[in-house]
């Protein structure tokens, strides 16, 4: 009697995969072996690589030792099927990570053998990659609260090492912004607004990798974290979905997508439109003053594969945001008849913000367009080439409504500005990867040209008039252009229990200002990491490297114009420097009884010219500056658990300290006492403790997901030496697919902040404005799938 073990390791596609340490590239290798009931290699077996829709992507035959390999596979969820004459078919699911080679074992037993099929759900094996990486498959993304309407930034915050702030901003490992979003291998250039990341809808994503440390040399420019997005592509059948979401704050959103594929062509198009009476996180929980807004998203991906070796991808993403700038209802106007009365400080000693007349209609409008044409060519065993030119247009207009903002009740001496920012990026990336034995060698280059312009008009209040108004208006245009280039070379070598990754990159940024001055900054970033599998289910890793990040060329000038701290007739000094950081981390990951995976990571960083940002009042705009030095250290714990086939969960906790010393650039943004302070200051985006936990129950078309989020509080106080009160928030989502009803509707109810916790992300001080989280809010989603069939 022969015992056959067939183990579809479903784990990887489920919530259990919410955390897996590793390092990363866009494409990866899936390899394995096919053996029979006596563990003898099966020669000449046909192994197919299928996507999660069951579409055959690649086919290969096993070699004399029963092994097979697929190279140049984008990370994501796959199924492997092995067939051999006279033997049963074997299947196994795998979640391929770009950070390490995925290995599978398939068993094709003789047809006449008696077999026992064992199907079990497990957590994924510890990754053998050298850095910190979390991989989220499509099913995981769909099961999170808010489902596919959840902004990508909120998905990211469920991972260890991230801190959530107002407006959907997220900070990774003590860094303020500087998160690199990469779509299908193409890094997205900086925006003039901060909402581009939120414009990437989850429904566009097939799989997602979040890297918070140990980035390979192919990643540069923005290194707080890398969010690597593998977008969806059309399948063989015509399918789609339309959805309506309605809920608190009169929020209504319609969305949908359609995809299809035939022969060498496939497409995936979609979009959404949302409007709400609470768009930004306002300076009060209630009432909410002047916070209406809407956004629209359109995206399309077209694929054309004329040959088995070539694939051309056209990707377009457009986003529009329009929102009102919220007004703080807790601030009262000064009384001109009682000059002895002033506004009080709050319980932290923070000075009150200025009064904004309640009829002020300040708004921000943003447009983002990103398009790229990517060509991938396989040279077979000689490697794979990707060439992708791209274009990105980013537009943001802050309209201050001076007629009302400087009205009768406005503070004497008030200044407001209209600032319109435009940035156009044109560039290209080139990647070449080749597998040589146990080495995966990758090299590439990037070139990006930026042309930016900022139009501004500064209005000064007429304090001589009882009704206020505009006393004077002056304006101008700042023009900045920049050329950013980078090259890299890296190798990932894996043999037996050991994996080593090493590489180096060189970056150069040349900034040209309108007055003819230039700024050149360059850096070399060597990186080295190693992993060791002490046991199959116990992997340790170490990484050290230099992280060079060129400064954002436009933020500083925009901030100066919005705040009006530089005379309209003067140029904004450009003295921001590139950040160079020495970075290291250690990690250990263990799988216990195939049901639990525990990971611990410790990391540290010392920076020269550390970046930080100042937030501009109640807007989502930032201005960049440097600390002379920076230091940060953190420890992250995470657990993935599969309790039963229908019950799984995850949990993580992060402790971190991040500090900066001595403000060294953009000094016009700061008061003399702030500049004089050369002590180590805790950064205002650092939160000492952050924790997330989630639990998902899935049963026969129904799912219930609950999530808990804890934060010990961001910084506040006149010198940023205190923290806002800690918070604990629970979210809950129930989803059900009514498969027996006409149109097979899917209904979901999202309850955000289930226990109505009232808490602040920010309590405004001299550095930022106040922002409060939403109270309990409820949303209902009704979706109709469009499964229209088509060519199988």
């Amino acid at each position, binding site marked *: 009697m022969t015992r056959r073990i067939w183990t579809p390791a479903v784990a990887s596609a489920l919530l259990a995969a919410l955390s897996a340490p590793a390092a990363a590239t866009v494409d990866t290798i899936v390899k394995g072996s096919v053996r029979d009931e006596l563990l003898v290699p099966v020669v000449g077996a046909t192994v197919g690589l299928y996507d999660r829709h069951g579409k055959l992507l690649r086919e290969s035959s096993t070699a004399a030792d029963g092994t097979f390999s697929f190279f140049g596979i984008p990370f994501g969820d796959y199924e492997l099927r092995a067939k051999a004459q006279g033997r049963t078919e074997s299947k196994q699911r795998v979640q391929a990570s770009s950070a390490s080679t995925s290995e599978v074992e398939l068993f094709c037993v003789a047809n006449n053998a008696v077999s026992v099929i064992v199907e079990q759900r497990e957590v994924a094996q510890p990754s053998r990659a050298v850095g910190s990486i979390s991989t989220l498959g499509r099913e995981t993304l769909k099961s999170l609260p808010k489902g596919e309407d959840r902004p990508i930034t909120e998905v990211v915050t469920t991972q260890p090492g991230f801190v959530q702030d107002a407006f959907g901003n997220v900070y990774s490992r003590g860094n303020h912004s500087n998160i690199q979003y990469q779509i299908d291998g193409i890094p997205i250039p900086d925006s003039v607004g901060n909402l581009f990341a939120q414009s990437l809808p989850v429904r566009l994503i097939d799989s997602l990798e979040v890297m918070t440390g140990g980035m390979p040399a192919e990643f540069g420019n923005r290194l707080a974290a890398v969010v690597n997005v593998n977008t969806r592509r059309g399948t063989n059948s015509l399918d789609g979905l339309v959805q309506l979401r309605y809920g608190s704050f009169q929020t209504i959103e319609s969305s949908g997508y359609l995809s299809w594929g035939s022969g060498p062509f496939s497409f995936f198009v979609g979009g959404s439109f949302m409007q709400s009476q609470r768009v930004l996180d306002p300076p009060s929980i209630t009432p909410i003053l002047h916070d209406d807004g809407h956004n629209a998203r359109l995206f399309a991906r077209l694929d054309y594969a004329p040959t088995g070796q070539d694939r051309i991808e056209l990707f377009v993403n457009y986003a529009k945001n329009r929102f009102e700038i919220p007004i703080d209802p807790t601030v009262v106007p000064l009384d001109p008849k009682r000059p*002895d009365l*002033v506004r009080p400080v709050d319980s932290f000693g923070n000075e009150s913000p200025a009064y904004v007349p309640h009829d002020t209609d300040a708004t921000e409008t943003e447009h983002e367009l990103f398009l790229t044409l990517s060509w991938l060519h396989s040279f077979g065993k000689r490697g794979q080439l990707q060439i992708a030119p791209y274009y990105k247009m980013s537009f943001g207009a802050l309209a201050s409504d001076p007629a009302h903002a400087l009205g009768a009740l406005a503070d004497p001496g008030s200044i407001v500005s209209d600032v319109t920012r435009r940035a156009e990026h044109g560039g290209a990336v080139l990647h070449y990867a080749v597998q040589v034995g146990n080495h995966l060698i990758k090299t590439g280059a990037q070139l990006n040209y930026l042309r930016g312009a900022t139009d501004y008009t500064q209005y000064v209040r007429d304090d001589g008039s009882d009704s206020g108004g505009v006393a004077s208006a002056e304006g101008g245009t700042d023009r900045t252009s920049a050329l950013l280039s980078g090259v890299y070379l890296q190798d990932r070598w894996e043999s037996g229990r050991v994996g080593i990754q090493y590489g180096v990159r060189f970056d150069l940024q040349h900034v040209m200002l309108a007055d003819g001055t230039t700024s050149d900054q360059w850096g070399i970033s060597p990186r080295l990491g190693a992993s060791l599998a002490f046991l199959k289910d116990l992997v340790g890793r170490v990484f050290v490297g230099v992280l060079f990040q060129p400064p954002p060329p436009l933020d500083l000038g925009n901030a100066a114009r919005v705040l009006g701290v530089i005379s309209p007739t003067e140029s904004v000094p450009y003295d921001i420097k590139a950040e160079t950081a020495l970075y290291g981390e250690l990690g250990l990951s263990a799988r216990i009884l195939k049901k639990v995976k525990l990971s611990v990571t410790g990391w540290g960083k010392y920076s020269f010219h550390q970046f930080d940002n100042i937030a501009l009042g109640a807007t989502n705009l930032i201005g960049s500056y440097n600390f002379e030095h920076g230091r940060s250290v953190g420890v992250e714990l995470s657990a993935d658990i599969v309790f039963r086939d229908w019950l799984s969960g995850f949990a993580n906790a992060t402790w971190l300290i991040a500090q900066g010393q001595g403000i060294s650039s953009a000094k016009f943004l700061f*008061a003399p006492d702030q500049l004089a302070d050369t002590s180590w200051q805790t950064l205002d985006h650092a939160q000492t403790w952050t924790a997330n936990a989630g639990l998902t129950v899935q049963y026969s078309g129904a799912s*219930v997901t609950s999530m808990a989020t804890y934060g010990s509080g961001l910084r506040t106080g006149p010198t940023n030496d205190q923290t806002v009160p800690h918070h604990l928030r629970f979210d809950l989502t129930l989803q059900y697919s009514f498969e027996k009803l006409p149109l097979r509707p899917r209904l979901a109810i999202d309850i955000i902040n289930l226990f109505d916790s009232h808490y602040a992300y920010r309590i405004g001080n001299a550095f930022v404005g106040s922002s409060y989280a939403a109270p309990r809010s409820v949303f209902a989603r009704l979706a109709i799938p469009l499964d229209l069939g088509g060519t199988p």
Partner: protein
Amino acid sequence: MRLLGICLLSVTLYGIGACTREDGIPNPPVRALVPCVVDAAPEDPLACPETENPDAAGLDAATD
């Protein structure tokens, strides 16, 4: 199926019924004006504004 329907309905009704309602009272509370502090340092938020007639400002003036 029936149990799930009841759960969905219950949670929906609970969520809608328990939503935070605006009651017109700002949360956090309004920062009512307070008398300035005469001897506060100039950069202190509670420092009295500069006026042409110094006697018109300050705690004494406010309580006169």
